[in-house]
């Protein structure tokens, strides 16, 4: 696919949601209130694993101002198993499965009465053995979270907590390792991390006795919220209208429900609107962090840097319910390399922790971290240049990937070459400083999408998408619509519709929105263009096929060419009332040709040899994004991903005590990087167009969190002269390694 000339794509217009956000006008999850509304509070288990013997809510119910109290008993009769687990995660049934698991909830006329009512609920627990570590949870004899969900292919060597097993690869490992001059085999561990969105989960639910419901919430996918809540509350989807608020970050963490079914149930019981807002403590204890991991990596390399064989064994811990995510790790682990002999296996494991949910490129960062750390160690050992070595093995168009498919046009080689040529790579290194390199990969997704576009009589355009805008989609969708229609950007206003105003749309995740909604937008624009050409043909009294759309206007073509002056979109729209009524375009579909995306990160870290403190001195991130519709947003995505990965590498971790309780449920001891911790992250956009999108778009939101873990780890390992095998590399761990 050759590079195209664009008028609007690639420019950097002001963001459409900017003014509302900086002036405080934007309405986030907790910002909506209605008259007569009640406040919800949720009682949570202080135990990692306990049988709920009894719950006495009578005293709470008797407290003046309390309008409803619910427990797991209100959520029985579950039809669908998967929604059943989601429901049980929102409200425990007979067992509390992790510290923070909801066991009861109240709705009251004030927050303080609701809080007081929680203290009046008496829960009798019978403590059960718990397990929070992945390796412990996999051992036969470990306390099993749910019986009967063990992955079918597995035998007695692993416990019933092992709910998933996957294997990918090709070739013959033994042959490959025999060809190697150097084989390194290492074990790694990474801690569970949280997405760290600043806005806690919040919603306002109103479920009337007529079965009609309204739900306002902070979510990445309101159709998904509708689907799950309608199922749990046993109402028809059409009767529950869900509106997505502005969102203060999600990064995957808002792709499911936690408090929404609870608020709806409280509303149904009380007959009043109910607002529920999580505290930060609740966000940490009872939303969905990402998996922790334990991994073994073995890679063989020839003296000249060719990877001869590669093997990964990934064990992920995903919390208290069955889940599937290690597959993504097993597929991503070796995606960057063109290998003859490769195998990756993965095990999904349950523990007494909150159930995992997606976090930016879910499953990939830890797997790629472990692989890239071993690749770096091999480079060190064989005295090879880390970028040249990666170039030698890099996947390119036509490579059969380690997870099966053959790659189409991809930009890994371009990213590596850009990194090699960048001044950062050749800059001298100061004392106690190490330079780390890592590749990263993410699939990117397509999925179901609906877009509706109305051409207004004044020549402006309204566009409704069904995907919450978490990364700038209102800007990029408007830009793609303007490009497709051939009109100025300021004529277009894009909004995120509620579930009653536009068709189904999958969750905003998988870096899919600019790709999938973009395709739907282009198709919707083309539908509107077709209609406008038809109207022009009608006015000119010529054949519909004799009209073409050029630069935002209809013009006669073929033997009619030049017969009439072109009619602009505004001119056609102005008379639409007399030519057949309003003009609109819409598109529903499920595009599936999202192009995979690769990134390469370079980092210089300085380690204080006396304290183990790591300072990130310089950071450059290269990423193939296909086509950067709005480069400033794309740069923001790359920078944000890098920063989250740096946090994961250095300080972020869920810390569980012996008692199975989370010890750091807050931003003081769950340390995301603060601005002063970081240099300016320098993003370098690379554009190798995705042949599966008319404008060449690939997703760009997730790839950037994948390389930083290994890049930082490799930098630290080189700075201190000792290899590091565990994340986070908090100062005590580094100081210990230095010795």
């Amino acid at each position, binding site marked *: 696919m050759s590079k195209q000339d664009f008028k609007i794509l690639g420019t950097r217009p002001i963001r459409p949601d900017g003014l509302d956000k900086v002036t405080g006008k934007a309405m986030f999850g907790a910002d909506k209130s209605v008259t007569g509304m009640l406040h919800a509070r949720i009682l949570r288990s202080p135990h990692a694993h306990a049988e709920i013997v009894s719950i006495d809510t009578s005293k709470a119910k008797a407290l003046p101002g309390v309008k409803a109290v619910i427990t797991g008993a209100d959520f029985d009769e579950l039809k669908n198993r998967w929604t059943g687990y989601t429901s049980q995660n929102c409200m425990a049934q007979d067992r509390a499965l992790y510290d923070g698991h909801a066991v009861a909830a109240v709705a009251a006329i004030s927050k303080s009465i609701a809080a007081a009512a929680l203290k009046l609920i008496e829960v009798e627990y019978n403590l059960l053995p718990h397990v929070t570590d992945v390796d412990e949870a996999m051992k036969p004899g470990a306390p099993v979270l749910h019986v009967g969900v063990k992955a079918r292919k597995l035998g007695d060597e692993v416990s019933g907590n092992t709910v998933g097993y996957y294997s990918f690869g090709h070739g013959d490992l033994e042959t490959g390792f025999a060809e190697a001059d150097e084989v390194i085999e290492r074990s790694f561990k990474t801690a569970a991390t949280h997405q760290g969105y600043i806005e806690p989960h919040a919603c306002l639910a109103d479920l009337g006795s007529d079965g009609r419901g309204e739900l306002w919430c902070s979510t990445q996918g309101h159709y998904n919220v509708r689907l799950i809540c309608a199922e749990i509350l046993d109402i028809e989807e059409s009767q529950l209208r869900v509106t997505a608020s502005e969102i203060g970050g999600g990064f995957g963490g808002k792709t499911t429900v936690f408090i929404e079914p609870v608020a709806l149930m409280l509303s149904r019981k009380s007959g009043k609107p109910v607002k529920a807002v999580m505290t930060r403590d609740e966000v940490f204890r009872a939303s969905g962090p990402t998996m922790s991991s334990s991994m073994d990596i073995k890679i063989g390399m020839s003296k000249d840097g060719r990877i001869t064989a590669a093997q990964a064994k990934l064990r992920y811990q995903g919390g208290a319910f069955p889940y599937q995510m290690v597959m993504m790790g097993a597929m991503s682990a070796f995606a960057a390399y063109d290998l003859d002999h490769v195998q990756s296996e993965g095990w999904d494991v349950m523990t007494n922790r909150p159930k995992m949910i997606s976090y930016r490129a879910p499953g990939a960062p830890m797997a790629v971290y472990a692989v890239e750390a071993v690749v770096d160690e091999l480079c060190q050992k064989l005295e090879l240049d880390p970028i040249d070595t990666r170039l030698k093995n890099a996947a390119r168009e036509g490579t059969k990937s380690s997870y099966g498919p053959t790659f189409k046009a991809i930009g890994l080689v371009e990213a590596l070459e850009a990194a090699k040529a960048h001044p950062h790579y050749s800059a001298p290194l100061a004392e106690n400083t190490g330079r780390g390199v890592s590749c990263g990969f993410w699939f990117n997704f397509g999925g179901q999408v609906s877009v509706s576009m109305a051409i207004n009589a004044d020549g402006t355009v309204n566009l409704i998408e069904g995907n919450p805008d978490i990364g700038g989609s209102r800007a990029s969708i408007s830009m793609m619509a303007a490009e497709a229609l051939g009109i100025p950007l300021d004529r277009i206003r894009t909004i995120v519709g509620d579930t009653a105003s536009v068709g189904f749309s999958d969750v905003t995740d998988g870096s899919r929105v600019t790709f999938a909604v973009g395709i739907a937008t282009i198709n919707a624009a083309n539908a509107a263009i077709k209609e406008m050409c038809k109207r022009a043909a009608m006015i000119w009294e010529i054949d519909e096929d004799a009209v073409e759309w050029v630069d935002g206007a209809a013009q006669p073509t073929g033997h009619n060419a030049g017969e009439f002056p072109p009619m602009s979109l505004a001119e056609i729209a102005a008379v639409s009332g007399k030519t057949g009524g309003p003009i609109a375009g819409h598109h529903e579909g499920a595009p599936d040709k999202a192009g995979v995306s690769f990134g390469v990160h370079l980092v210089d870290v300085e380690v204080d040899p006396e304290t183990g403190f790591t300072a990130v001195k310089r950071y450059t991130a290269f990423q193939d994004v296909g086509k950067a519709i709005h480069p400033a947003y794309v740069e923001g995505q790359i920078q944000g991903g890098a920063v989250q990965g740096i946090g994961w590498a250095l*300080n972020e971790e869920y810390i569980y005590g012996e008692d199975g309780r989370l*010890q750091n449920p807050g931003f003081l001891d769950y340390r995301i990087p603060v601005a002063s911790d970081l240099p300016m992250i320098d993003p370098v956009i690379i554009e190798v167009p995705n042949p599966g999108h008319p404008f060449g778009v690939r997703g760009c939101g997730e790839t950037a969190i994948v390389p930083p873990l290994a890049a930082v780890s490799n930098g630290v390992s080189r700075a201190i002269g000792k290899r590091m095998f565990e994340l986070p590399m908090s100062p005590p761990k580094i100081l210990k390694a230095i010795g």
Partner: protein
Amino acid sequence: MRYIVAKNSRDAVALLGAGDGAQPIAGGTDVLVQMKLSGVAPSVLVDLKKIPGIRDIVLEDGGIRIGACVSGAEMGENDALKNMWPGVVEAVELIGSTQVQGRATMVGNLCNGSPAADSVPALLAAEAIARIEGQDGQRDIPVFGLLEGPGRTKLGKGDLITSVLLPKAAKNSADAYLRFIPRTEMDIAVASAGVNLQLDEAGVVAAAKVALGAVAPTAVLVEDAAAALIGTRLDEAAVKQCAEACEKACNPIDDKRGTIEFRTKVAGVMATRAAKIAFQRAGGLL
């Protein structure tokens, strides 16, 4: 909960001494956070900020007196104070962020009783003296004498600190404060050190105070560490001995913020680095 703005220190003492559960509030950056986290409010919150003189920084014969409600930001803008006690000011300025600095007070930091409070090691090294207004009138007590344990001080019921005196700094002397945190700001000290040095005419350490924070139930003065520096120009042996003395004085907890081993090692590192800064500030040549 009742909120009362005290008109003068006698009123405040009376209010605090009267019923159970009355609590003073200065900047509120600890009090409000604690109220929110515990969900429990004191019966009476006595705001001290309107007490006459409580927000003043005054030069006296004996030194410089800092009112109990002077904020960190105000201390950071007082040149006389910064020149005389740069270590104390840098310790207070490390508290929180720009927003927190506008409210947080040094005295609130002391009275909150955290073993990791940033100003306290610096106050110990400076030999600061707190002026206390209580049921029986006014008394002056060294800050050292007020420390008791995590979340506690030796202040009695109804006792109130109205100001802190930093003694007049000796000639050729200076102080410094350093803390270790895993990030660069918005964090709690894992180990910290305040050092105050006085040099003789030859540039040799004549007097020294070394205090550590976050490595014991309260901040501690480490006499052996100070002794190791006296009579030296901070040569390698002296620095090593100082660090070892600090390590010996450590009695830290093992928790999510740092292991015993780590806190102990880093306390020595902070002390010797702070000593070098104080030494140079006092005019010493390394």
